[in-house]
């Protein structure tokens, strides 16, 4: 009998196409998995950034993954009912981001203040003596920062 845990394991194979080291589970966009009595599977997802063009691709990949594992009756729903925020990126995901050379978003409590938007730890030398260059990078989820210590430009997964 298929359980939600099985499905979650399948989804570990599905990666963010823009950051191929990050699974959808670690990204925190899978908000619910249900398996009904009759075996019907419902997977709920929520977008990172509402306009992220990779979300439709990720949804299709989830469907492919379910099919590959022999799940025949399923639906994958995208909604804002449990909105994403960057605190939902797992510890494992944060480590993977760092190894990928992308500064992970600083976890925060309560409201996201300007200081956290601008804060970033350099993934090259780990200095926090850095400044934000622009909040818009090569993809919607990345901002551009400059490290004043090793004098290199780097990208951060934006806190949201």
């Amino acid at each position, binding site marked *: 009998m298929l359980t939600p845990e099985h499905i979650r394991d399948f989804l570990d194979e599905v990666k963010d196409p823009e950051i191929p080291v990050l699974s959808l589970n670690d990204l925190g966009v899978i908000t619910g998995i249900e398996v009904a009595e009759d075996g019907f599977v419902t997977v709920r997802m929520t977008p990172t950034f509402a306009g992220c063009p990779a979300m439709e691709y990720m949804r299709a990949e989830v469907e492919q993954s379910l099919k590959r594992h022999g799940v025949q009756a399923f639906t994958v729903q995208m909604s*804002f009912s449990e*909105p994403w925020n960057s605190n939902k990126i797992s510890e494992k995901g944060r480590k993977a981001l760092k190894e990928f050379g992308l500064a992970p978003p600083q976890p925060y409590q309560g409201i996201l203040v300007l200081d956290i938007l601008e804060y970033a730890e350099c993934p090259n030398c780990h200095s926090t003596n850095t400044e934000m260059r*622009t*909040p818009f990078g090569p993809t919607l989820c990345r901002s551009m920062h400059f490290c004043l210590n090793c004098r290199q430009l780097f990208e951060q997964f934006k806190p949201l």
Partner: protein
Amino acid sequence: MLENAIKDLLYKIADDQLILGHRNSEWTGFGPMLEEDIAFSSMAQDKLGHSLAFYTLLHQMGEGDPDTVAFMRNADQFHNSQLVELPIGEYDFSLIRHFLYDNAEILRFESLSQSTNEEIAKIATKLKGEVRYHVLHANTLVKQLGSATQESISRLQQSLEYALPFALGIFEPSKHEQELIDAGIYSGEAALQNQWLERISAVLEKTHLKLPEIANLQPVYGGRYGQHTEHLQPLLDEMAEVFKIDPTAEW
């Protein structure tokens, strides 16, 4: 009826985002610097995503499907403020419009995130985080360029004076205003406008730009009731053209 009042409010928001998103995307490949090119393209993507979120909510409330609603209406059926439909002009104008609009939009989302309507509150809570980056971008650049050279200051000042009456049109009161306020849907246009003036004044004070006396300005109203400049219909035609060629194209 409250439902109609809510729909009217959601159309205003969604249409503003859709139209400004398309205008912002016109900077792709033409930004004055690569960074600005990327910024306007990214904000365009965000705004189109935001409009889709609200059209989807409208669809759940019984309105047409998002593609039809976005690409198949005529100008007189659009509820966007006239500010967002104006051509991109020179970079100074686009920057000032972005500054005036996004500082208003984040306040609208902040208010809606407290809404008694849970669906709206959830979406607004999510999207205000994204808009915060737009505001950060606009405020940073206005502070920089508004205190840079004599030329950049005077160009921005000119754009500010031109755009401001249109920006006041963002807050054109709707006929459902009191109903929405009483039901706790949001705080209403007058309250938003007051907060907005405080926010933009605080930024402009850090520059050499002067905020014109608001009381002396005639706000450009009409957009919320389907009255638009001659610039909107050609933009809609162009959007519909792209949609008709490939209805499955991503937003």
